[in-house]
């Protein structure tokens, strides 16, 4: 007789509860997540491939794409450099105010992008701190690319740092100290010891940062001034077309960003397979503490 294998049922393994839960989550998941993706594709090509191509080829759309790419090309590398510097300072050294700095870096994550946009207005706008000064020097920050870049940098400031810090914290300082004791310079240590160990997490942060920069709407819409063909990024261009009753055009432009989103997710999954993005469980303490700990 070949023995039949029975596994001990765990909590929630009953066939009814299992089916109900899978069914319900799939249903809502399809409505909430999958349907928007499909409707973008359907609407974008609703008036034929020709209309789609025409929207994409339109100078305004092309300029919006240019603006979006240009913003990302500046904001993402700068944020990456910042993320690396912040992670190095916070994880490799103890200094006064370290925890406070961590909190401040995370602030943009919990603040409405509209607040960010409005705040930037009061720094560089005519009513703001430096506005009159900049006006006098004939430097244009708001309603131009620099303003868009700055607002994007605010919104995505934590993205790279928050991927690197937990990982570098967990890795500790031993490797760097060993490299230094063997006579390696600081930069040498960073490039040949630290960076190789965090490269996937870094790339992961960069991918997410890029997706957010290219898709940012609220903050950018405040500081860009919405000048068609001049200061519109792709998301702003979508809004413009949509409110101009050019839904097909809006969806055509949206399909570019939706493709970017799908590519981002694929990259994310690929990087997660290499160990990136797996943040140490928030409550590591939920697991039984290791035996042998002192009282």
């Amino acid at each position, binding site marked *: 007789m070949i023995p039949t294998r029975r596994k001990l049922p765990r909590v929630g393994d009953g066939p009814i509860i299992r089916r109900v839960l899978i069914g319900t*989550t799939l249903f809502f998941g399809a409505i909430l997540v999958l349907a928007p993706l499909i409707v973008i594709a359907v609407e974008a090509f609703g008036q034929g491939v020709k209309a789609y191509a025409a929207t994409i080829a339109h100078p305004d759309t092309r300029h919006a794409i240019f603006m979006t790419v240009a913003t990302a090309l500046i904001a993402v590398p700068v944020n990456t450099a910042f993320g690396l510097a912040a992670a190095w300072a916070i994880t490799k050294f*103890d200094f006064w105010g370290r925890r406070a700095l961590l909190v401040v870096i995370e602030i943009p994550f919990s603040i409405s992008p509209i607040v960010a946009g*409005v705040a930037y207005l009061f720094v560089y706008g005519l009513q703001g701190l430096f506005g009159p000064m900049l006006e006098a020097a004939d430097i244009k920050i708001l309603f131009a690319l620099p303003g868009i870049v700055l607002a994007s940098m605010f919104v995505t400031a934590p993205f790279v740092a928050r991927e690197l810090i937990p990982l570098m914290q967990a890795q500790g300082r031993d490797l760097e100290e060993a490299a230094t004791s063997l006579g390696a*310079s600081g930069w040498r240590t960073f490039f040949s010891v630290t960076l190789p160990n965090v490269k996937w997490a870094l790339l992961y942060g960069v991918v997410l940062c890029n997706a957010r920069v290219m898709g940012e709407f609220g903050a950018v819409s405040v500081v860009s001034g919405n000048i068609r063909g001049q200061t519109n990024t792709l998301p702003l261009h979508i809004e413009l077309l949509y409110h101009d009753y050019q839904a097909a055009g809006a969806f055509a432009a949206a399909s570019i960003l939706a493709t970017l989103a799908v590519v981002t997710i694929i990259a994310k999954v690929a990087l997660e397979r290499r160990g990136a993005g797996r943040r140490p469980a928030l409550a590591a303490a939920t697991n039984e503490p290791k035996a042998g700990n002192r009282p």
Partner: protein
Amino acid sequence: MKRNVLPGLPLSLGITLFYVALIVVLPLAALVVKAASLGPAEYWAIVSSPRAVASYRVTVLSALVATAFNLVFGLALAWVLVRYRFPGRRIIDAIVDLPFALPTAVAGIALTTLFASNGWFGALLAPFGIKVAYTPLGIMVAMCFTSLPFIVRTVQPVLEDLDPALEEAAQSLGGSDSAIFVRVILPLLIPALLAGLSLSFARSLGEFGAIIFIAGNQPMETEITALLAFIRLEEYDYQAAAAIASVLLITAFLMLAATNLLQARALRYTARS
């Protein structure tokens, strides 16, 4: 303080502080200064105007509903992804992040099209007299979408790392499935749920892009606070914009503080004596 062997503190910390000061602190300080320049009476008049109060109500209520939905749905989704094996699980796991990756404006027009009265879902709901687009319901749908991943992604790793022996121990002590879920599993998920909950709620309060398309934006009814700040700007009423934006800012900070407190309380059992 321990002396450090490693080089690079002045440079890395210098860059970090400069960047944080310029990009994060300076603008927020400018906003606070602007709002503070109003004077208490004037500030109060702006932030307590009926239109502003109506915007808080619709924003907070919608955010509460959306967060409550995501609490249940996010927990269920995390559970399904961790505990069950079924075809398509990995794909579902991946597309949970779509709301993070999809620009909010794109999500906004897509949801509006789906839920407009002639849209795929809107048309299904219309016969029952349910209107979603251009009503507070639409705001909730948009908030549900944009904050969906938070609870899933905070609960999932904790659920994955949950020691199976804890459940076995509870079973060997005679616990029924529901007792084990309520008394053992759920309490261990609470810190993660709280973290996800506050992120989700904060995101809903501040969301702009996805909502303005679907909301209808009627003052006193479907106008969210972020939009009101934006409208004041377009009207060149900078002081009112600053005041209303400062309300959003303060709320965000209070949320952060409350979350940290709650989490510390929920995790008090990890404190060593």
